[in-house]
């Protein structure tokens, strides 16, 4: 039985990861903002086989509460082996362009709150010389594009931060798994027109769990995004800026 802390537990991707862990009989500590959905998911995961489920309702932008939440998770499960950080919002790019406040709020949710959590968790895992930290980043962080560079830059910060953290914690036997997601068909992306590049959350979750099991470093999910982003990242700026790919 693994003791797993799931942050952003009502996200479709985190929920499907948790279903896999529940079926394995793991213990789950679930953190999210919406109390009704959190309670529903906790009860569901219990029926699906979780050894124990705990729900913790909080706004992850309240960074002063992060340490207390981690204390509560450790106390409830008798320690934490694995953390999945999956909370976030899909920024409204057009609104951000017109508002400094909105831009910074998005950076706050998608980057700074994650970095606050990672700082606490890294120190705790480093001290006990064990643990796996998985963070949901995005292919959007590989190169800023006009259509969503606010979200993309927040994810770029998460990717760079976890890269450094992985190096630091390697000698402490702590794995840091950076998951760069492509397009996933979730409530967050419901209004997008779906094409061949889109994946279902259950499929994506199975790949994420496998990457966590294997303590991978950085993975593209689904894997073909590695090739897509290799091309996009290497387009010279004088071509990229005219906006064939937005």
């Amino acid at each position, binding site marked *: 039985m693994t003791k797993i802390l799931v942050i952003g537990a009502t996200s479709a991707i985190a929920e499907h990861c948790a279903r896999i862990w529940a079926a394995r009989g793991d213990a789950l500590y679930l953190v999210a903002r919406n109390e009704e959905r959190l309670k529903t998911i906790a*009860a*569901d995961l219990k029926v699906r086989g979780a050894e124990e489920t705990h729900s913790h309702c909080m706004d992850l932008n309240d960074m002063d509460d992060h340490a207390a939440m981690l204390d509560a998770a450790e106390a409830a499960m008798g320690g934490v082996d694995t953390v999945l950080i999956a909370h976030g919002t899909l920024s*409204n790019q057009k609104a951000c362009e017109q508002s400094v406040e909105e831009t910074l709020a998005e950076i706050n949710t998608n980057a700074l709150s994650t970095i606050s959590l990672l700082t606490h968790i890294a120190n705790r895992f480093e001290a006990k010389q064990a643990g796996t930290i998985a963070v949901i980043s995005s292919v959007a962080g590989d190169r800023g594009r006009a*259509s969503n560079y606010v979200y993309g830059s927040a994810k770029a910060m998460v990717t760079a931060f976890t890269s450094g953290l992985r190096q630091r914690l390697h000698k402490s036997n702590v794995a840091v798994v950076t998951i760069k997601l492509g397009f996933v068909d979730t*409530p967050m992306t*419901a*209004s*997008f027109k779906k094409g061949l590049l889109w994946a279902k959350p259950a499929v994506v979750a199975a790949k994420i769990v496998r990457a966590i099991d294997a303590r991978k470093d950085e993975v593209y999910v689904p894997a073909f995004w590695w090739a897509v982003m290799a091309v996009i990242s290497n387009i010279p700026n004088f071509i990229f800026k005219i906006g064939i790919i937005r």
Partner: protein
Amino acid sequence: MTAAPQTNAVQTIAAQTTTTISGWGGYPTQEAQVITPLSLSAYKASLQHHPSVIARGMGRSYGDSANAATVLQTAYCDHFIAFDAATGVLTVEAGVTLRDILKITVTHGWFLPVTPGTSFVTVGGAIASDVHGKNHHVAGTFGQRVLSINMLLGTGEVVTTSPTQLPDLFQATCGGMGLTGVILTATIQLIPIKSAYITQKTIKAGSIEEACEAFEANSSSAYSVAWIDCLSTGKHLGRSVLMLGEHSDNGGLGLKIKDPISIPIHTPAALLNSMTMRAFNGAYWAKASNNKTQTVPLLPYFYPLDAIGGWNKLYGKAGFVQYQCVLPKADGVANMRKILTQIAQSGAGSFLAVLKQFGPANQNLLSFPIEGYTLALDFKMSPYVIDLLLRLDDMVADMSGRVYLTKDALMREVSFKTTYPKWQEFEAVRQKYGAIGKFASAQSKRLGLA
């Protein structure tokens, strides 16, 4: 790569998109606003924002019963609420599929009391269709095993209904095609099993008469169904392979569950023609052996087609219609011969045809099964097939039979109102509970329901 998403008030409680939807047959299609509430409390708000909606689960009913300009999809309300492994009582949200249930309950020794031929249907859909399975002759329909339902009415009120609590609403909702309200959660009684295997016995019947005799002779069998050759004529008309089943006591409760292999694209429809179908049916008949007993796992026994995801695409882009009718037991065999003759002469029947004996009808107002024989088969969509099926509708009505609403895409109002005599009672219940004007589908409009 993609446009920026739109944000609006409803999006925080429900995912929203506009797309083309259809039933499993792919005919007819409709442009629809698809609203997927994120939680049970979100259904009410989603309902308030739209004049008329229909709930939609996995989209596995074949025709247009889950088609409407605005649909409430249950995909994100797929949570288990409670399961008592001692009593087999299970409570789930309506979007949970039968496959999800089996993954969890079989290892604890509990199985679905009634299951249709696919596990990819939601509990909400199974109730709305009042589905039946291979055990109808002894177990009745899915709705008969439902202990209670929580549902959202057109008035915005959430009520609990059961055989004893608002029984009129319960009898209208089981088999009511989603037209009485939105099923939010349901509690069902599972049945105990000792093994994840079925002992299957195969019996060959050379004609429709022999097949019906074999059903009669094996009416105590827990499960029975027959593959029937709808292309053979003359004295071989209706030759069938009966598959009887009993839950095994051996083999353990481990469920072997695999994701289906998928058919990603529509195959050229010409691949399924009368020649290939005749060849398939001939081979199937020849391969089956009489009086053979074998032990098979649960899933391939109950859901042979679930192994092939998207098998509906085999019929090409125009889609297909599935036709399922039931004929009363009196004169049932002679009447079935007339129906089969009509189908065999057309040469349009497909390679997948199923014959089954039904037990007595239940109290539900629009439930399909009546005591007698039911026949189900696919037809590749064409103008000729529309003519044929409307002709069959008339024959079935004259024989006091009826057509299954869950498969229907074509039936005319007059056929529906003749063969479902409780439709006025159904409308009265809808009126009483505020459903009229609030819940409607392309099918309900075609059938002349308010």
